């Protein structure tokens, strides 16, 4: 009886020992897997793609509203490059027009998705501002390009229940379309209206700064096509980059700073009525 008890106890000890080893191996495997997922493996410098290291960059975006002519090539390029729904309700980037008429103290604001502008363009898949103010006395007028602000503290990332939207190490806010559950809480939480719902894929959609392009050393499509350099993009880690020069040489501001979101899109030439 005594012997038997002893045997059982030692058997249990052996079993526990084995269990411990299994746990250690499993832990090590799990740790390695997590390290890989986070890009912290020994092969650093190869994430998210083989020839791009996201710890070596910090992207930033500039908008020079004094230069924008409202040609909307950026909107068109974005839709084509990123396959954004070709209608007047889904945009990764858009342009707003602010017009102060003589004798009015509030601006008249519209974007290219305004029905009158769509009528002037001929379809929702073409973009233009109509000439509605041609007979009015315009005191001041300007265009403001808008896009996701890729905030330092993004509310969209904060509220995502599954972590499908996230901030990359190089500063972009992205969405994993294969993991998004389509609750649209992020659409609600974004103070800038930068998010939209992709009804074909039933997931949320937004500007990625053309992540597939910038990680290959290219410019975002909207920046590439802008004929007047109203859109500036570059690496904040590189002192010689266009964006660092833009921030250095101008007094920049961000949209809705009171939200605490700390956008990394910097504006010049906007007015108090721009929000």
């Amino acid at each position, binding site marked *: 009886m005594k012997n038997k008890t002893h045997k059982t106890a030692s058997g249990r000890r052996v079993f526990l020992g084995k269990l411990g080893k299994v746990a250690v191996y499993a832990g090590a495997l799990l740790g390695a897997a997590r390290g890989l997922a986070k890009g912290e493996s020994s092969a650093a410098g190869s994430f998210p793609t083989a020839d791009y290291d996201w710890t070596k960059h910090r992207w930033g975006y500039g908008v020079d509203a004094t230069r924008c002519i409202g040609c909307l090539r950026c909107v068109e390029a974005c839709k084509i490059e990123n396959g954004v*729904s070709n209608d007047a309700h889904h945009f990764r980037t858009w342009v707003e027009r602010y017009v102060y008429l003589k004798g009015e103290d509030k601006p008249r604001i519209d974007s290219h998705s305004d029905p009158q502008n769509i009528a002037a363009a001929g379809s929702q898949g073409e973009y233009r501002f109509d000439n509605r103010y041609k007979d009015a006395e315009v005191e001041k007028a300007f265009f403001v390009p808008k896009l996701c602000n890729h905030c330092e503290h993004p509310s969209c990332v904060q509220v995502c229940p599954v972590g499908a939207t996230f901030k990359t190490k190089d500063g972009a806010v992205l969405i994993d379309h294969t993991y998004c*559950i389509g609750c*649209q809480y992020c659409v*609600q939480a974004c103070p800038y209206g930068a998010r*939209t*719902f992709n009804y074909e894929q*039933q997931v949320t959609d937004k500007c990625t700064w053309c992540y597939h392009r910038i990680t290959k050393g290219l410019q975002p499509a909207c920046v590439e096509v802008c004929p007047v350099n109203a859109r500036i993009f570059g690496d904040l880690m590189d002192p010689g980059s266009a964006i660092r020069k833009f921030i250095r040489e101008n007094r920049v501001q961000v949209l809705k700073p009171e939200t605490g979101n700390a956008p990394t899109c910097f504006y010049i030439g906007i007015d108090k009525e721009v*929000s």
Partner: protein
Amino acid sequence: MQELYHVAPYTGYVYPNETVFPWGVLIVIYPYITGLVAGSFTVSTFYHVFGMKRFEPVARFALLTALSFMIFVPTPLLFHLGHPERALNALWTPHLTSAMAAFGYTAGFYILLLMLETGFIFRQHIVARAQATTGVVRGFYRILAFGSDDVSENALAYDRKWIRALALIGMPGAHILHGYAGFVFGSLKAREWWASDLMPAIFLSSAVISGIALLVLLYVAVAKVRKFALDNECMRGLAYTLFGFLIFTLVLELLEFVNLIYKGREGIETVMALIAGPLALGLNIQLVGSVIPLVVLTVMIWRKTQGTPLVVGLTVSAALIMIAVLAMRWNVVIGGQELSKTMKGLLTYHAPIWGREGIVVAASVFIAPFFVLWALTRLFPPWDAGSQRA
């Protein structure tokens, strides 16, 4: 393309992406249902926790009502999700900074608690049923009785302990579940109409009045059908609690409203235009549905109204409050989205009748719990005085 979503007409300037509403009538129904759960559970705790004897006639029915509605709480969300098949991602990989990530856990915990509480309260009856039947039916009842057919005084005392403990835990459970729904809206700084610290409290207290109101209506209806007399003391108790919580709710709502107007932050003109424009009907329904019951209940309590006049007055008040709370959910969920994030424009939401997120689906989600409640009362007779205990 167009049939996939509904475009909202607007005035002023709104962001181009705002013309499609992210959350529609299904998300109006969702907090309405969770509110009814929290409210009816609260009534059952009046008896099971606070020991208020006058609520005994409806206490067990209140619990079944909470359970019936709780079963359907996740459905409006699942209908709404673009990828409902990925819903469990929020359970496997919850993103801890998201209020919404707590939903699965809170709801799961709470539904389990309600089922356990129901099992313990009706165990004596279930054991009797198990003993009177054979075969599969007997097996089914035995599972419901937690596999025990012991109904000795000792065992019943044990059950009572569980009933009290579960009701005690259930109180914060129910209120967290619904306070959470208020937090989902109140914590969003992007929407001026939502971003209020009082939002969870308003959601909670309005939930309690909607739950009491629902129980009044069901109690009166069941008494009519089953031809039993309404318990006068119970009705008076329901009138008192409805009155008290109604005042509390109205004060909170008034405080929130006055705060919003008084602070008068940027875009307040647009907020005023929202109140006078797209949201005017909803707000008026909420106002009338709250003020008339307040007057009726005040008069009845002042005059110590009894019997049939009490039944009529309370039923009318309860019906109006049910409508007012539904209007309140609409005014929060839809109203918040009708006010553009630009604070320079207003949108108008027109609920689609058909489709996954239409009125028909939302109404079905609301009506379905009543059928489940009917089925549950077959299984666990809450009106059977013989098994009334605990």
